[in-house]
């Protein structure tokens, strides 16, 4: 099967469902070490994206879909997550702008560009207890899977598995970026909500490819 605009649209539609489903979980994670609005903001943003998805023209490429997601999230999510996810989707969209169907190399390019966008905007490094701690392992795992000859689905599954493990691994960390950094040692024992929503997003990408 080929991962084209149909997959990209289905991924985003599934992501909206997942954000809605996990809204309370993300709010609770954020209330522990942030300001408690992450689930609300992500759900609001993805619902706005969902409302625009049907208007994406039939001849659109995957990059066009992701670009719409980027601009919509930037203008609706707010907080820190809006610009971070917006930049991630924008850089991802630009990196695969000319592709109609995404092969393994294009998927690795897309994931890498998204992660680089988050790092560019948020200036966080691995181990700072942020979204980067889900994205960097995901990018590395996707690259390794592709190098080992894995197909699209296996690449996305490797990325999702690594992102989930990365989100879990933020629990023992002290935060060095974002509101949680004000807590110092008190952030230990809590999972970073941005890393968790990143893992949800990447799991949705793999699950969508499996449905196709």
């Amino acid at each position, binding site marked *: 099967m080929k991962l084209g605009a149909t997959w990209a649209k289905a991924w985003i539609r599934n992501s909206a469902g997942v954000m809605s489903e996990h809204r309370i979980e993300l709010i609770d994670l954020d209330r522990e070490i942030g300001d408690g*609005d992450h689930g609300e903001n992500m759900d609001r943003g993805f619902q706005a994206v969902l409302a625009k998805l049907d208007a994406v023209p039939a001849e659109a490429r995957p990059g066009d879909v992701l670009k719409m997601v980027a601009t919509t999230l930037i203008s609706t999510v707010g907080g820190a997550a809006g610009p971070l996810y917006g930049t991630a989707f924008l850089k991802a969209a630009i990196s695969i702008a000319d592709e109609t169907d995404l092969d393994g190399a294009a998927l690795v390019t897309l994931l890498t560009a998204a992660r680089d966008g988050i790092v560019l905007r948020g200036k966080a490094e691995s181990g700072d207890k942020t979204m980067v701690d889900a994205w960097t392992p995901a990018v590395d795992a996707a690259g390794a899977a592709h190098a080992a000859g894995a197909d699209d689905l296996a690449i996305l599954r490797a990325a999702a598995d690594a992102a989930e493990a990365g989100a879990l691994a933020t629990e023992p960390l002290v935060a*060095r970026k974002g509101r949680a950094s*004000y807590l110092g040692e008190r952030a230990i024992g809590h999972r970073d909500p941005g890393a968790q929503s990143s893992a949800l997003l990447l799991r949705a990408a793999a699950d969508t490819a499996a449905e196709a």
Partner: protein
Amino acid sequence: MKKLVNDPKNVVNEAVAGFGAAHADLVRVSADPIFIVRKDAPVAGKVGIVSGGGSGHEPMHGGFVGPGMLDAAVPGPVFTSPTPDPILAATKAVDGGAGVLHIVKNYTGDVLNFETAADLAAADGVEVRSVLVNDDVAVKDSLYTAGRRGVAGTVLVEKIAGAAADRGDDLESVALVAERVIGQVRSMGVALTPCVVPHAGQPSFTLAEDEIEIGIGIHGEPGRERIKLEPADAIVDRLLGPILDDIPFVAGDKVLLLVNGMGGTPQVELYIVFRRAAEVLAERGIEVTRTLVGNFTTSLEMQGMSITVLKLDDELTTLWDAPVQTAALRWGR
């Protein structure tokens, strides 16, 4: 918790509509996207000054829009940064051809949304400079945190930068004056009670009846320590010590002393605080040459206050004294 609201979802847009109606002599408001600009914006040839951030800190920032201070304020949802769209729209609305200064409080959300808006404005041909206010000494400034928070010192940055723009300084010069204020202003606050975000409906943190939080942030973020309630003078000493030791402020300095209420503290208590703060500064040989007491950077209905000290020189004093005509600060015109 009792609040004077209708639908909690409409708190910000209803408040902004009311603000626009009450101060139609000074401002215009845009309902979608939400922002407030001075009535005669854009002022041709003058650097535009834009600030903003989450709502719930009134009169900051809308109350500071008008001649001699801000050209625009962009209120986000309560305690949440506005998105880049309204910031971009406000930036364009006040660009009189001399560029625009963004005055941003140092919170990750505010920084990222203002940065994104500045990028978009630059793409549209508007020159934007940004300064970050980080006056809260309660937070350790290190590579290991998001850095110090912007709190009540922001009011002084906005007033003085506004005066610099008003006298005709170019964008670079206005930004430099703002940076100079940021370098010389320090604050720290205390909370006696928590605040309640309207759509959350429950306190954002809890304090026992006899507890106070020293070093509180303006969104109820934790500070340095939680202690038992003490007499006002002892609390003032706890806040002023870290402030004065930070730059440090030394004998012979001339300063502006701001005692800021967090929203739920009566004026009578703010003046008790001011009395002690002035006494401590006098003991240290620091001369208080300008003063401000009142609710300027609030945290909804939180009981508490913050103390801000700004080291003045002749230029900053002149700019502070310059005329200002806004809903919350008004003199000289």
